[in-house]
């Protein structure tokens, strides 16, 4: 029952949530006033999703307080959260495709006897009230993504959610649909409901939201900023970290050699089938580190996967160490001299259920064959060599790789990739989630590679890392590689403006 005395719809204080090997929330705070639209900003892995899952009853926090409408709560399931008036629209919709809109809306919260016509009429009335155009009698599988999202919002409204969490709602929408959504949530806010809007698209946050809270590394770094008064560049800075946080000194410059990677007019689609990489032109030379900055979700992942051969291109050419590899499978690229540190270490770079040895030989197992069998001793020696050379702390090389800490996983992965004497190192978020010591070690390995005349393409969300390590720097925004920056002279403000999409090249 709302407590009229409190104007806070949501108050989260000191939320901690730990998972094996990861601290997802480390004392996060959030305060959402009633009748406002509140943005929660942060990079991937900043702890946004975990915090929202705590608020919506999916996770129980290890520590911390949760107050809804002035009442302290402890949710043990999403049902508790719904009963307390908290509804969440997840990124992956949770709808029954063969049910109609009305059936989906009332599912789990319907009267015992369902009168289809009556329910449809009531859902229709609710939809009209908020401008959520949706035919209640249509089956969900016929609907577009935007329409499905409206059904999810209707579901929350049907359960009378006074706090509605939208997890990156515009990721699946066209720009026109996104604007429409902005109007719908404003109407809900005007009615006294509160909307939590998770995004990393700063222009939308600016357009739709009243206040913003920024998370980084599981902590709240800025709480309840007034969105009207703050510059998007400042928000971008807050998301990616303050100057001089964790980075070593700038390494001495190194002479540059021939090109090892040339991308010309490369286009590719993202996982949702929309253009995610647009007309990318990029050259990486021997002996230089080229940095790619940008707010996550702007095509960096696709850029990396296109170079590694994990995502097909729709057009353009990719020349790797003199070999045209566009349209060729990943193996061709590795033979040409690519080392790839993927963003998802466990799951792409490493196979989680297998042993340390099995993972160490992922690239080289074909060379460890004796007839059809693998030479077990030779594999083991190779693995132990990597472990020793790159300082991986591991109990037993036959243990599952999943038992290693994040820093040790990354050392093993990097060690394996570098042991093939690569021509180009492609590193995506190589230091994310590591402790200071681990960050330094990985950064040093990348600099060592550069100094050995290898080309390095470094994709990172840590602007300081890029400003320190990169010899040249590009910003990615909405799938495009924007103007090149010189990291020794560029200011954080300039780069932040480009990241926020304020650059002239945009729109």
């Amino acid at each position: 029952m709302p407590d009229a005395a409190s104007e806070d719809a949501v108050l989260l204080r000191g939320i901690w949530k730990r998972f094996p090997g990861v601290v997802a929330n480390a004392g996060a705070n959030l305060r959402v006033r009633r009748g406002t639209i509140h943005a929660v900003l942060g990079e991937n892995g900043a702890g946004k999703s975990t915090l929202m899952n705590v608020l919506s009853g999916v996770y129980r926090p290890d520590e911390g307080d949760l107050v809804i409408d002035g009442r302290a709560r402890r949710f043990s399931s999403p049902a508790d959260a719904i009963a307390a008036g908290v509804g969440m629209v997840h990124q992956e919709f949770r709808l029954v495709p063969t049910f109609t809109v009305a059936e989906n809306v009332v599912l789990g919260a319907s009267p015992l006897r369902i009168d289809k016509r009556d329910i449809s009429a009531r859902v229709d009335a609710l939809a009209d009230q908020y401008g959520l155009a949706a035919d209640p009698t249509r089956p969900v599988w016929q609907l577009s993504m935007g329409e499905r999202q409206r059904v999810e919002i209707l579901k929350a409204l049907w359960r009378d959610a006074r706090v509605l969490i939208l997890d990156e709602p515009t990721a699946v929408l066209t720009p026109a649909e996104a604007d429409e959504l902005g109007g719908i949530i404003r109407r809900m806010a005007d009615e006294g409901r509160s909307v939590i809007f998770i995004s990393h698209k700063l222009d939308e946050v600016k357009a739709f939201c009243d206040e913003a809270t920024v998370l980084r590394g599981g902590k709240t770094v800025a709480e309840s900023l007034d969105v009207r008064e703050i510059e998007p560049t400042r928000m971008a800075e807050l998301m990616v970290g303050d100057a001089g946080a964790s980075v070593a000194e700038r390494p001495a410059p190194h002479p540059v050699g021939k090109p090892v990677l040339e991308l010309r007019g490369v286009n590719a689609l993202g996982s949702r089938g929309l253009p995610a990489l647009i007309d990318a032109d990029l050259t990486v030379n021997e002996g230089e580190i080229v940095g790619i900055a940008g707010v996550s979700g702007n095509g960096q992942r696709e850029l990396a996967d296109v170079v590694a051969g994990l995502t097909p291109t729709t057009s353009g050419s990719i020349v790797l160490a003199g070999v045209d590899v566009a349209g060729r499978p990943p193996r061709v690229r590795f033979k040409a001299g690519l080392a790839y540190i993927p963003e998802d270490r466990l799951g792409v770079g490493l196979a989680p259920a297998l042993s340390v040895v099995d993972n160490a030989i992922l690239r080289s197992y074909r060379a460890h064959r004796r007839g059809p069998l693998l030479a077990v001793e030779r594999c083991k020696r190779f693995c132990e060599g990597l472990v020793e050379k790159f300082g991986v702390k591991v109990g037993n090389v036959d243990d599952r790789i999943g038992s290693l800490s994040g820093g040790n996983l990354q050392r093993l992965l990097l060690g394996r990739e570098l042991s093939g004497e690569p021509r180009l190192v492609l590193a995506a978020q190589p230091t994310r989630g590591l402790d200071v010591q681990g960050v330094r070690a990985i950064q040093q390995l990348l600099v060592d590679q550069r100094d050995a005349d290898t080309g390095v393409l470094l994709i990172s969300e840590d602007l300081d890392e890029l400003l320190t390590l990169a010899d040249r720097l590009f910003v990615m925004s909405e799938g495009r590689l924007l103007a090149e920056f010189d990291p020794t002279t560029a200011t954080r403000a300039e780069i932040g403006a480009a990241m926020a999409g304020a650059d002239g090249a945009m729109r």
Partner: protein
Amino acid sequence: MKRPVLVRRDRVLPGSQAFAFVAGLVVALLFGAILLIASGHDPIEVYGRMWSSSFGSTNGLGRTFNRAVPLALAGLAVAIAGTMGLWNIGAEGQILAGALGAAWVARIGETWSSPALITAMLVAGTIAGLVWALGPALAKAGLGVNEIITTLMLNEVAVRVVRYLLNGAWKDPASLNFPVAPKLPEAARLPGLFGRAHLGVVIALVVIALVAVVVNRSAWGYELRIAGSSGPAAAYAGISLKRKILTVLLVSGAIAGLGGAIELTGNAERITEGISNGYGFAGIIVAALALMRPWAIPAVAVVFGAVQVGGSSIQTLGVPASVADILQALILAGALIAGVLMAYRVRWVSTRAQDPSGDGLEAVAGV
């Protein structure tokens, strides 16, 4: 106040699956005892009879081993596909196909020497099982069609094909119009090993050992395990998922087909509709209990063989044979539950810090 919370262990306890299997067995026997008492039987007498008929004599042991052979091969077929995260639910049909292939060879090779005939039957059965898996394998690898559905549906087709042959071309003219095939010639019968056990026991063990080595030690098996652990990691390593899917489903079908051929030449007098006898489906349980690991399959298969042999022996005590089915299901359920619980430990946490009625909270929250 303290309350228990289940916390996932960082690493699995050594031997936990073996423990879980035994725990499942115990749970099954206890629940089974309750059922037996409820239906007016003496559980000790019934279990005693099951034990003595399955393990208590050379003949009993032979019967148990003979039962274990098709169970183990079906389990192996499911397990090798499962290593890659694929579900071959069609071992039942592949067993029938294998038996059909072997029976066809027995029909055309009546004049061959016994070793040649039996070898040809086993090869034909293996190929027939492979062919039966070909459609689902191509559909999965090429188009991504769910292999669970396609392999399952082909079971029905296999049953119908056998029925068609038994009612038509293959019907025994001397059968007085009953839909049965003629008995196999003596030359087509697999030699004995000991007691009632036949040579198929040895063949199955050799195949299991071979598959275990291939999965755990060969480059092919390594690629299989990588693909099973993470598809993206396999793609990253340059492993062709399509080719792996195709080959592993074909090998899976071939193993089940071999099981069908052995069952025909070793155990059955003639091909019948019921020759697959649910082994293909029980094989799924066997593989699940063995955690898809080939070397664990023989033990599980022998226990299941004993439960089935014991289950049919207690009918003379007036206990329905379906008790064996119930016990099998309970073993699986108990072992699965125990297996999940073994992955967790219980931690007692204080409830006070988060107690909504506690006094400490309001000061913190400032409300």
